[in-house]
């Protein structure tokens, strides 16, 4: 249960918030007309924006889904609650770029060669296995839901602090959330990927303004970082009811494994998400991806500064029962009303954009790899697009169910839970990008073991507020240190895959047909010095 931090409605802040919200809604609907191609009914068009985005648009798109309510609400909230442990998000985002640099250009090339829109498409083509492709699709859709839920939690936190939705009546309480949800759903439905790409500009501008102001203005008002960290140290060292310190400014020996595994596990998981792949594939050339990895880290710096807001909230004396409200509450306490409204709009829109991108990506997955492969193989491009649109709604409804039924006080767990699942597709995807050695059945078995272990382990973690799914770290079997469950499950997955591959190869189990060839993985970028024409966007489109 969230608790309204104050009872009054902040009229000015709410007014500014609504203004920006309406503005992006208009942009969202107009986006449908932006750079429209001849064949707007194809899935390529709705789901990948025609695959024609250059460095800057892709940068905004990728940034739009990498830095989200996670950045603005969940991470600072974790820092606010536990200190250093929540800062793992910074090394996590640092490690993402070398990974993207290494893996994604290959995926881009092979996808553009064969018209793959999703990771499942690739896995099916590479391993000739519909079962494996289905596993990857289901995992992608499942893992995306809690991630979208995290975005909705972010919006809800803002609405809570503004004083609406705090009523004890469940319907009135959640009404603003439902409205926000409906608007998001409506314009995503009509504009596809073009909506979030355009809105991302507005969002990032707002966010940069808010961050700059917050990072300069709030520390000055609080008397500098010395005072801020002194206050935080005092809070963390004060024992709680159980007589233990509540957090730490520097991770103790025992927390370092957790810190490192969370960072690594999250980094490996991030670009496996359907939405990261969508953003990547919508870039114009293979080179755009690499170029992007050199400018995207700007976002990491932003994330680090935002994480420090958690300490500032402590120093400012913000006391909230639900940690997710810490940052919105800090903004309301520190800023004049009108600017608090701008900040709330930044958070709100910063959650909307990624939620839209994520649901589109999950919908693409369903349509291509479940609907078309298993339900209606002869679907026309129009039917594909229609189903995608509908499923993008359903996925959002699924996320809404997460928000309304699960405990939201440690929202960062939503994202970590999704990470546990999505990481299990890593061997099939990244393994497949580099080698055909893995056997398809071994990959499927490894995936199943990883999923089962990860889900069970996460189910068994209790927190003070809930009995199951209370956290994402657990003792690593055999090492005895506490580590991220996702990474443990991933290692288990790889071990099973390798062993079974050896066995299956020895038994000469039938290998699937590989429709890709080695040079597909370096296509176009095999010669990046030469300007090649745009790769054909094959699937379903005719132009």
């Amino acid at each position, binding site marked *: 249960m969230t608790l309204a931090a104050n009872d009054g409605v902040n009229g000015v802040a709410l007014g500014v918030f609504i203004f920006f919200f309406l503005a992006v809604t208009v942009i969202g609907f107009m986006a449908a007309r932006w750079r429209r191609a001849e064949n707007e009914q194809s899935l390529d068009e709705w789901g990948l924006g025609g695959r024609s985005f250059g460095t800057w648009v892709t940068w905004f798109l990728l940034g739009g889904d990498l830095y989200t309510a996670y950045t603005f609400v969940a991470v600072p909230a974790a820092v606010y609650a536990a200190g250093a442990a929540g800062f793992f998000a910074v*090394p996590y985002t640092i490690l993402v*770029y070398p990974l993207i*640099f290494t893996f994604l250009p290959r995926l881009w090339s092979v996808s553009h060669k064969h018209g793959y829109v999703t990771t499942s498409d690739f896995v099916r083509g590479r391993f000739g296995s519909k079962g494996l492709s289905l596993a990857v699709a289901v995992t992608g859709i499942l893992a995306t839901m809690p991630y979208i839920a995290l975005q909705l939690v972010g919006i809800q936190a803002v609405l809570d602090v503004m004083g609406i939705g705090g009523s004890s009546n469940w319907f009135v309480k959640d009404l603003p959330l439902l409205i926000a949800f409906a608007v998001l759903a409506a314009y995503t439905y009509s504009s596809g990927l073009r909506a979030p790409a355009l809105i991302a500009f507005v969002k990032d501008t707002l966010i940069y303004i808010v961050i700059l102001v917050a990072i300069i203005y709030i520390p000055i008002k609080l008397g500098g970082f010395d005072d801020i960290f002194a206050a935080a140290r005092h809070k963390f060292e004060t024992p709680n009811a159980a007589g233990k310190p509540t957090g730490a400014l520097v991770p103790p020996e025992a927390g370092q494994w957790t810190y490192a595994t969370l960072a690594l596990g999250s980094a490996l998981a991030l670009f496996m998400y359907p939405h990261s792949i969508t953003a990547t594939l919508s870039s114009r050339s293979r080179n755009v991806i690499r170029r992007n990895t050199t400018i995207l880290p700007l976002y990491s710096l932003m994330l680090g500064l935002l994480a420090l807001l958690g300490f500032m909230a402590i120093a400012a004396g913000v006391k909230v029962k639900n940690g997710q409200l810490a940052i919105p509450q800090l903004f309301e306490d520190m800023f004049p009303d009108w600017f608090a409204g701008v900040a709330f709009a930044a958070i709100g829109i910063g959650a909307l954009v990624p939620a839209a991108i994520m649901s589109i990506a999950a919908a693409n997955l369903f349509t291509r790899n479940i609907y078309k492969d298993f339900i209606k193989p002869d679907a026309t491009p129009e039917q594909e697009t229609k189903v995608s649109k509908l499923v993008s709604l359903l996925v959002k409804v699924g996320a809404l169910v997460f928000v309304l039924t699960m405990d939201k006080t440690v929202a960062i767990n939503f994202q970590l839970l999704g990470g546990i699942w999505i990481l299990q597709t890593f061997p099939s995807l990244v393994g497949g990008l580099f080698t055909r050695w893995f056997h398809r059945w071994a990959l499927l078995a490894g995936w199943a073991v990883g999923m089962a272990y990860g889900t069970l382990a996460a189910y068994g973690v209790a927190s003070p507020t809930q009995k199951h799914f209370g956290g994402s770290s657990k003792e690593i079997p055999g090492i005895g240190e506490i580590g991220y469950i996702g990474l443990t499950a991933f290692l288990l997955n790889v071990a099973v895959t390798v062993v079974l591959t050896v066995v299956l190869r020895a038994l000469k189990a039938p290998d699937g047909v590989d429709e890709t060839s080695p040079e597909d993985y370096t296509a176009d970028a095999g*010669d990046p010095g030469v300007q090649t024409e745009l790769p054909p966007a094959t699937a379903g489109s005719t132009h």
Partner: protein
Amino acid sequence: MPESTQERRPVITPARVVIALCLIAPFVAMLWVGSYAKADPALAGIPFFYWYQMLWVVISTALTMLAYKLWQHDQQGRKAGEGK
């Protein structure tokens, strides 16, 4: 689609080793938490633990940029070497 020419150059070149090092360095630095889990020296009141990691955002960006440039150079060299 033209027939792809078989690469004649060695797969491992000094430039590629540097690229690999650029990409691996952030992992070593960030996953070795014990090397930076301390409060001092503080910078402008921010404990070492925090500013050091933020500094690595900048360092890793520079390394990735270097890797990108080297890779472009490498690919152009290969292109020219193929003599298409």
